[in-house]
């Protein structure tokens, strides 16, 4: 590479280039004159042509033109009869023309050659630049990769901490609660005769609060477990699952008339246990919030036409909700109803959302106050038709 570069040492400054042309022609002329002194003949033509080639090569087109003109002048003036005049005699015209022709041809060849070499050089430079850029990019990518690895490690640590946090909550937060409940009950039993009505109500409130807190902790733990446990994805027949869940909830809701209207439901991909939890939450919500109706009407169906996803809806004729608060609906511990209206910890819909998100789906809700609510969730469809388990009625 160093040899290649030195081959291509070029005269860059224009002044130097033109100076080089003039000096070369002068030196060549002096040399020719000196050689002629020693009776050597006809060296002027090759020597001047050589000089033209050299100048074109090293100094470029401008100096080459100057060099051609100068050497033609010198040739005409000094080496063509009559000597010391620019006049060319008829006998010398061919010789003069041969010189001019040789000069122009050598100059243009040299110029073409020079251009090609220049292009090659540029191409090589570009390649080298690209190579450097690529190396730089590679370094950047490697750096980013390292950062990513570090970030992943951090995330794993954070996850582990979260897990051990949830674990501690599960172990340690429950024990004092159990004691709170236990000793309150013992107090109730032992001091039943000593406590007046008011005091007994106080103890009762302590008990209920502690139990409520126990439920909150259990729900929160179950919620956090959704994110931590691995999912086992299989094809799940929603038709069957909804029927099972509806039957179960119907059995639990004693004294409430429920009319179930279950439409055609698809087979989806998902974790059966988690999807069951989604349906339990949505269906029991539908029943719960229709508790004030004489007949609770719960409709479950699916909407097609969402690409590779199916959208399932659960509609009720219950108390509904104000669409202004729809954003709060799926938040953890968010409730749109007072505790004395409808019981609950406010984690059901958050659980629904979390499970559906883990399945790559979305949730949304529509509602009108006193006119019922509809909850939608989407799930990936099972790609191949799956044989359904037929339940015998």
């Amino acid at each position, binding site marked *: 590479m160093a040899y290649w570069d030195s081959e291509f040492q070029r005269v860059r400054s224009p002044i130097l280039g033109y100076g080089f042309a003039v000096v070369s022609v002068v030196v060549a002329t002096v040399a020719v004159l000196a050689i002629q002194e020693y009776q050597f003949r006809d060296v002027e033509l090759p020597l001047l042509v050589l000089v033209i080639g050299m100048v074109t090569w090293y100094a470029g087109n401008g100096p080459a033109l100057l060099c051609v003109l100068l050497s033609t002048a010198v040739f005409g003036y000094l080496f063509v009869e009559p000597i010391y005049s620019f006049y060319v005699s008829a006998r010398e015209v061919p010789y003069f023309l041969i010189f001019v022709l040789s000069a122009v041809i050598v100059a243009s060849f040299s110029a073409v050659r020079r251009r090609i070499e220049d292009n090659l050089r540029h191409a090589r430079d570009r390649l080298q630049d690209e190579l450097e850029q690529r190396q730089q990019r590679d370094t950047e990518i490697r750096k980013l990769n390292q950062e990513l690895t570090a970030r992943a490690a951090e995330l794993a640590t954070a996850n582990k901490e979260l897990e051990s946090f949830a674990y501690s909550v599960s172990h340690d937060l*429950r024990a004092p609660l159990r004691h709170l409940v236990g000793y309150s009950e013992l107090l109730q039993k032992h001091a039943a005769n000593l406590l007046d009505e008011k005091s007994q109500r106080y103890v009762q409130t302590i008990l209920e609060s502690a139990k409520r807190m126990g439920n909150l902790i259990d729900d929160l733990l179950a919620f956090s477990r959704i994110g931590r446990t691995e999912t086992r994805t299989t094809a799940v027949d929603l038709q069957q699952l909804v029927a099972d869940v509806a039957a179960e909830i119907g059995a639990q809701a004693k004294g409430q008339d429920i009319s179930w209207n279950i439409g055609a439901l698809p087979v989806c991909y998902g974790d059966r246990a988690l999807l069951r939890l989604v349906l339990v939450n949505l269906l029991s919500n539908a029943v719960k919030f229709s508790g004030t109706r004489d007949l609770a009407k719960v409709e479950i169906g699916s909407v097609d036409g969402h690409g590779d996803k199916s959208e399932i809806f659960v509609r009720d004729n219950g108390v509904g909700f104000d669409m202004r608060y729809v954003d709060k609906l799926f938040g953890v511990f968010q409730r749109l109803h007072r505790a004395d209206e409808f019981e609950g910890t406010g984690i059901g819909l958050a659980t629904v959302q979390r499970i559906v998100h883990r399945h790559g789906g979305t949730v949304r809700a529509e509602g009108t106050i006193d006119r019922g609510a509809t909850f939608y969730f989407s799930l990936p469809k099972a790609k191949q038709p799956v044989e359904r388990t037929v339940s015998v009625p």
Partner: protein
Amino acid sequence: MSEFGRILVVEDDPRDVELTLTALGEYKLANEVVVARDGKEALDYLYRREQFALRPEESPAVILLDLKLPKVNGLEVLQQIRSDDRLKMIPVVVLTSSHEERDKLASYKLGLNAYVVKPVDFHEFINAVKELGMFWAVINQPPPGSAKKVL
């Protein structure tokens, strides 16, 4: 005439000990209960070391074992029991606050007999412990060599 075995309760929390004894007391099982306050004490009892050096030779009919214990935790105690030929037959019931799947898995892998989550609700707790005591100390026939007392 019936007979019942001795129960070893391994529990570090004095309040849980009291509630457990209250529950066992309902079936008059409480006076045959030995309480160990941590995993080390439980092993001391089983190996008749230190303050238990002079205890009667028979093994307890059942061990009610908490998992989260100071010094030696419940799983370590269980592992020790199951890896010792003289102790491995003793029925062990884990009685814990933990609902966690990994605790259940680890316990059963070590050869646990039953896993009971302490209910938050007092009545449920009392009932659970009572039933446990009744089943393991009275109904169940413990391995030969367990402490039994004729009523």
